[in-house]
């Protein structure tokens, strides 16, 4: 198998051969400059022809390798990306399934804790509830809220009754539509059950009717329901009244600023006749007023509590200017807090100003007493929304997820699905982890390979430079016999430069594993090529750049010896020799004719 480091080394080797080829080409150019009589030109031409062929083949093979490698890499990468996508998708799917499994577990635990059930009972209850949450109901509420309502029902009935999931769902939705808490709804249901209204349908109808009556009476339905929840049982037990009457009484009390509990205490006070008369006389003596609560007592006895409250308010009259003793006496005589009586009067005036219709209230109360409550149910429940648009969306999403979790839970019970999924998940994660480790190891080995390749490069560069130096040497020798001193001086300068370069390249590089041959190469076709193990790369200058190295060079860049002027001079010199012009070197006049005459025989 070819490794990446091998490929890198091959690339560097090809580059070095190309440089060597370029040097050979330069050498041929130089030899050609000396004229056709030079003996080595023919041999160099032959060598160049063979090298050209070999170089072309080498480049062609390199290109073929790159094309082949690139195509194969692309094919493999595509395949792996598809695999990665599939693996990622599978992992995501498993993750979602695990989320559902967790959701099922959490739902079961939450229901078990809320309802004080064991796991199996909680699972069964959840299953029943989810079975009820279908169609429109799935948008109006969710399992969590229904379980809370179920718990509220259980608490309100003192654990004496068992409720079906359907009852809990219906009550939960009704409470939301009526705008009351599930606790208030459950306590109302419990109270209605205690007063003989055992049907849940009737209970919900009565809640709707109470709301209609509260609205007609200008009182807050929520406050009425709170009164019923807090003291409904006491009041119902005391008066022995029906659920319907209790609801009407609660609205009437609120309408006059009282609470349901006040009706009971007022009635108790009035019906304790001896004490009531004594307290009434005491108040009359203290204030000089003449209140008479006989009629109110009679109304209490008749069970006309609304009439009783009205009469009490009427008898109390104007309460302004009463002192502390007088207030206490009145409170004792009436059985309620005087401040509420003040509220009652103010509220009565307010209701009159609002145009609250007594006829409408009476009509509603009559319908409640007659059990004609379908209209109220339709108006206050059926036509109302239990949730906002966003809540409906959330409810639907939660219910769907809970149902999916439920089904998964059933499968899990049969097959230990959660454990299987966990195993698959771990396997995928394991594969990905090993891939990651392999990639790191690979990166490490490539780094080492690159270092090894870097260590090879200076050797190749040195070899190429050696060839360059020998070429310069050959040119110099030939020039000496062909062109004379001027050309020799110029070419010798280049030879010295190359030799100096080679010598400097042999200087040890302070990099581990790099042989002391220097890290410089010269590309005759381009600028100098420098490989820096420290910088981790190969750099090439332009044709205008030169390179020289010594202990005083290379600190900040831009320094060093510039041999370009010398090369230019060399070119001028060669050109002058070729054109046969008279030239002067070190004060001596030279020309081509003189030197050509001095050419040794046989050259």
């Amino acid at each position, binding site marked *: *198998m*070819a*490794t*990446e480091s*091998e*490929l890198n080394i*091959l690339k560097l*080797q*090809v580059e070095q*051969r190309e440089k*060597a*080829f370029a040097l050979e080409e330069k050498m041929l150019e130089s030899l050609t400059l000396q004229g056709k009589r030079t003996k080595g030109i023919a*041999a160099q031409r032959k*060598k160049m022809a*063979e*090298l050209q062929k*070999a*170089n072309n*083949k*080498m480049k*062609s*093979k*390199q290109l*073929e*390798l790159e094309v*082949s*490698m690139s195509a*194969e*890499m*692309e*094919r*493999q*990468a595509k395949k*792996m*990306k598809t695999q*990665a996508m599939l693996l990622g998708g599978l992992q995501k799917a498993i993750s979602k399934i695990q989320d559902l499994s967790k959701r099922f577990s959490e739902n079961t635990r939450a229901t078990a804790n809320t309802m004080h059930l064991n796991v199996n009972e909680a699972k069964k209850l959840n299953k029943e509830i989810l079975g009820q949450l279908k169609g429109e109901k799935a948008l109006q509420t969710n399992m969590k809220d229904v379980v809370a309502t179920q718990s509220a029902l259980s608490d309100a009935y003192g654990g004496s009754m068992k409720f079906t999931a359907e009852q809990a769902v219906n009550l939960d939705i009704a409470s939301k539509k009526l705008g009351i808490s599930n606790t208030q709804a459950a306590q109302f249901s419990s109270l209605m059950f205690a007063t003989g209204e055992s049907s849940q349908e009737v209970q919900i109808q009565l809640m709707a009717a109470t709301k209609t009556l509260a609205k007609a009476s200008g009182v807050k339905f929520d406050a009425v329901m709170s009164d019923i929840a807090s003291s409904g049982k006491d009041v119902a037990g005391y008066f022995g009244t029906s659920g319907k009457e209790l609801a009407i009484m609660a609205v009437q009390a609120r309408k006059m600023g009282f609470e349901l509990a006040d009706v009971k205490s007022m009635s108790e006070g009035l019906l304790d006749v001896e004490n009531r008369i004594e307290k009434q006389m005491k108040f009359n003596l203290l204030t000089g007023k003449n209140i008479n609560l006989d009629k109110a007592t009679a109304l209490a006895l008749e069970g006309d509590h609304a009439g009783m409250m009205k009469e009490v308010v009427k008898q109390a009259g104007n309460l302004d200017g009463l002192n502390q003793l007088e207030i206490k006496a009145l409170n004792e005589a009436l059985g309620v807090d005087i401040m509420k009586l003040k509220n009652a009067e103010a509220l009565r005036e307010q209701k009159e100003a609002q145009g609250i219709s007594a006829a409408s209230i009476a009509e509603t109360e009559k319908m409640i007493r007659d059990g004609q409550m379908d209209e109220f149910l339709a108006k206050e429940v059926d036509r109302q929304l239990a949730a906002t648009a966003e809540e409906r969306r959330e409810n639907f999403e939660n219910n769907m997820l809970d149902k999916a979790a439920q089904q998964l839970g059933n499968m899990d019970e049969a097959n230990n699905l959660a454990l299987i999924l966990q195993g698959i998940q771990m396997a995928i994660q394991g594969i990905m982890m090993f*891939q*990651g480790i*392999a*990639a790191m190891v*690979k*990166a490490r080995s490539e780094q080492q390979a690159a270092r090894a390749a870097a260590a090879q490069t200076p050797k190749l560069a040195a070899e190429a430079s050696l060839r360059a130096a020998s070429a310069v040497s050959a040119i110099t020798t030939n020039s000496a016999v062909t062109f004379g001193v001027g050309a020799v001086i110029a070419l010798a300068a280049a030879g010295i430069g190359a030799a100096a370069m080679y010598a400097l390249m042999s200087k040890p590089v302070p990099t581990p594993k790099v042989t002391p041959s220097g890290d410089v190469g010269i590309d005759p076709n381009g600028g100098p090529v420098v490989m820096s193990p420290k910088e981790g790369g190969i750099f090439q200058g332009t044709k205008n750049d030169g390179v020289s190295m010594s202990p005083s060079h290379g600190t900040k860049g831009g320094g060093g010896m510039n041999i370009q002027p010398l090369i230019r001079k060399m070119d001028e010199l060669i050109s002058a020799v070729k054109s046969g012009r008279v030239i002067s070197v070190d004060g001596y006049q030279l020309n081509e004719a003189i030197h050509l005459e001095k050419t040794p025989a046989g050259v």
Partner: protein
Amino acid sequence: MSKKQLKEGILDTAVKGVLGLWFGSKLIDRTAKKIAMKDPEVKQKVTELRDAIAEFDAIMAKYEK
């Protein structure tokens, strides 16, 4: 899902997506290269290139003499 959750979700996905794409592509390219080098056709091309270099060197050596 609230806007805040959506925002966090998008940010989370974006960060994971960018990092995943970057490192995932690197990993895939690296592994694809490794596998490609095992391909018989690629191995054949490597051998041919080695031979071509050796041929070049042989010519150089021949004329050194």
